[in-house]
């Protein structure tokens, strides 16, 4: 995969992001009786030009994270620094301008396109909103975009229902590209597509990244897809990040017990290959009332008493950017690296 552009150049830094959805009771006088802690203290950064994969199972908060970063929802607390500016502090007008640089591709290509608008209007709308092109110029640009995503320029006057799922996803991609963004948040962009079409769209996303120097936050639950497209991967569990690492490192050397189980659960399309499978007991706990301490300790095979007390933070044990939020880890792995020894001693 493409080597990451000069280290330290982060296009986006997310710090302590929290998004709680209030649960209210009462009809006229509503009072809050609890909260769904969808995202509960998430910190990560994305380097310019890379693809960061954000994986996790349903309800882990990965989609909410993506939407809050774009301020499609307001965050509860935390900050997201995009090219030096905190997105959450921007005025409406500034936010609108910044959205030129940050776009999103949605999961479901059937509900994310307005059925009453022609493809030309759908792709051209962002051009008008951001005063980038009008009239003939807009049409020319839309046709150009259609070609870029592998559709035909004569498709401009057609409606979404005339296209297949894969083609609609291409329209969604063209709409995101229209404003020349720097960062695109891809929220499960291929999950709704058939396998043979998935590959087409994944290839397209990779080609576009190379051509336009795009940065992707790629949110998905399919680990094989995430592994294929990402430079680095962050694994989420119940509103928190459990582990972050370079893609290859994550798959060859998973450290968090949850990552380990998640990887072992993926069925491999090779009947000759037999792996040891870790079957996790039970279900993911409710985000309304997440477990104290480490979020994963209720299902963890290595949990110790302290796990139910101590909140876990991401620690780069080996100084190679592989961060893990697990305090049992240093005891599990007798690594020669000095960092580990120091960590377990403290």
């Amino acid at each position, binding site marked *: *995969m493409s080597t990451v552009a000069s280290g330290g150049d982060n296009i986006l830094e997310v710090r302590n992001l929290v998004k709680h959805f209030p649960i209210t009771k009462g009809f006229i006088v509503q009072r809050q009786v609890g909260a769904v802690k969808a995202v509960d203290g998430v910190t990560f950064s994305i380097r310019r030009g890379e693809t960061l994969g954000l994986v996790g*199972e*349903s309800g882990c908060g990965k989609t909410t994270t993506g939407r809050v970063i774009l301020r499609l929802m307001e965050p509860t607390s935390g900050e997201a620094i995009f090219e030096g500016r905190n997105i959450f502090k921007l005025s409406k007008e500034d936010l609108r301008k910044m959205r030129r640089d940050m776009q999103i591709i949605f999961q479901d290509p059937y509900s994310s396109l307005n059925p009453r608008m022609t493809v030309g209007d759908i792709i051209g709308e962002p051009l008008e909103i951001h005063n980038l092109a009008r009239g003939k110029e807009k049409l020319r640009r839309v046709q150009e975009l259609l070609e870029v995503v592998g559709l035909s320029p004569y498709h401009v006057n057609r409606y979404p229902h005339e296209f*297949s799922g*894969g*083609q609609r996803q291409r329209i969604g991609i063209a709409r995101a590209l229209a404003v020349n963004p720097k960062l695109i948040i891809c929220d499960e962009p291929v999950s709704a597509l*058939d*396998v*043979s*079409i*998935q*590959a*087409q769209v*994944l*290839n397209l996303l*990779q080609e576009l990244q190379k051509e336009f120097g795009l940065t992707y936050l790629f949110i998905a*639950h399919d*680990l*094989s*897809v995430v*592994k*294929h*497209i990402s430079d680095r991967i962050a694994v989420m569990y119940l509103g928190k990040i459990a582990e972050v690492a370079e893609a*290859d490192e994550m*798959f060859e050397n998973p450290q968090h017990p949850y990552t380990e*189980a*998640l*990887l*072992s*659960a*993926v*069925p*491999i*399309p*090779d*009947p*000759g*290959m037999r792996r040891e*499978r870790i*079957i*996790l007991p039970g*279900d*993911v706990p409710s985000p309304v009332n997440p477990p104290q301490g480490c979020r994963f300790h209720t299902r963890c095979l290595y949990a110790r008493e302290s796990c139910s007390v101590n909140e876990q933070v991401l620690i780069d044990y080996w100084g190679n950017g592989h961060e893990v939020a697990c305090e049992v880890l240093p005891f599990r792995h007798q690594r020669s690296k000095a960092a580990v020894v120091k960590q377990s001693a403290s």
Partner: protein
Amino acid sequence: MADTLLSVRNLKTYFYTDEGVVKAVDGLTYDLHKGETLGIVGESGSGKSVHALSVMRLIPQPPGKIVEGQILFEGTNLLKLPEDEMRKIRGNRIAMIFQEPMTSLNPVLTIGEQIAEAIMLHQGLNKKDAWDRSAEMLEKVKIPLAKERVRDYPHQFSGGMRQRVMIAMALSCNPSILMADEPTTALDVTIQAQILELMRELQQEFNMSIILITHNLGVVAETCDNVVVMYAGRPVEHATVQRIFRDPKHPYTWGLLHSIPKLYERKERLIPIEGQPPSLIDLPVGCTFAPRCPFAMEICVKQDPPDYAVGADHYAKCFLHSEFATPEEQKAAEAAGLAASTRGGTHDARGGLRS
């Protein structure tokens, strides 16, 4: 074969719509043996689910109709059975679980009532015994506190637990065949692993055969003995799971295997199957895959290929394995990893098996 449980012969299920005839299943043939897990693989619209509903005789009629073929269950043609006879088989001898465990359970009845209903109907047990058996079944599918949870309603269970309930219900009458239509598609991977493990254990215990319908090649590789690959309503390849993955003979199977990203392999680029699946109302002349096939020859767009035997118990609907393909064309395919086979020298089309 002596231990053949279910034989589907040249099944054709069509839907008559205002826009035309949708050929959802168009000539499906396979045998299911005792204790076997057969995978039916295909993308949306390949006819895999319609096939399942055809076997269960649950095709809404009209607009649907099984226009041709036989479904022989222990020698009896299910398509010829009167409805009340069929009812004794459906849910009793052949049970089915569906993709969406929420919509296939009745939200206003407790889990226990729903499982007991099937047991009372098919096994003739009284209410009390049926209820006890329900609890026992829930224990079998490893639902914690089964005795209490029989009184719970579907919404009180998580997705994975609901699928366990569905399996408990399906197995409550000790069926010979479990038809599982995308049983883990709606579930997360860690839960999927739990359910697949459970199905494997129960298959042993109940000594049943499973027909697993899925689009997930990983699930197929890990659970199935034999595989039928479907494309646009037709079975294009049929072989053991090893042969399907190691030595695919149909360009569609070959293409599918190349287009999926693999967990333990680094690929710069995936090789997609170009184009779109055809409309089932307006199927292309000749091989339905020809318009997307990188190895398509002249004959492919003119004639529908028969099943060619390409190895032991291995069939592929593709002219590459016939005298119609020139050595150059076969070589080109082989270079791409799709070895043409003219094993045995003859191309006995599978027609003989159908009679």
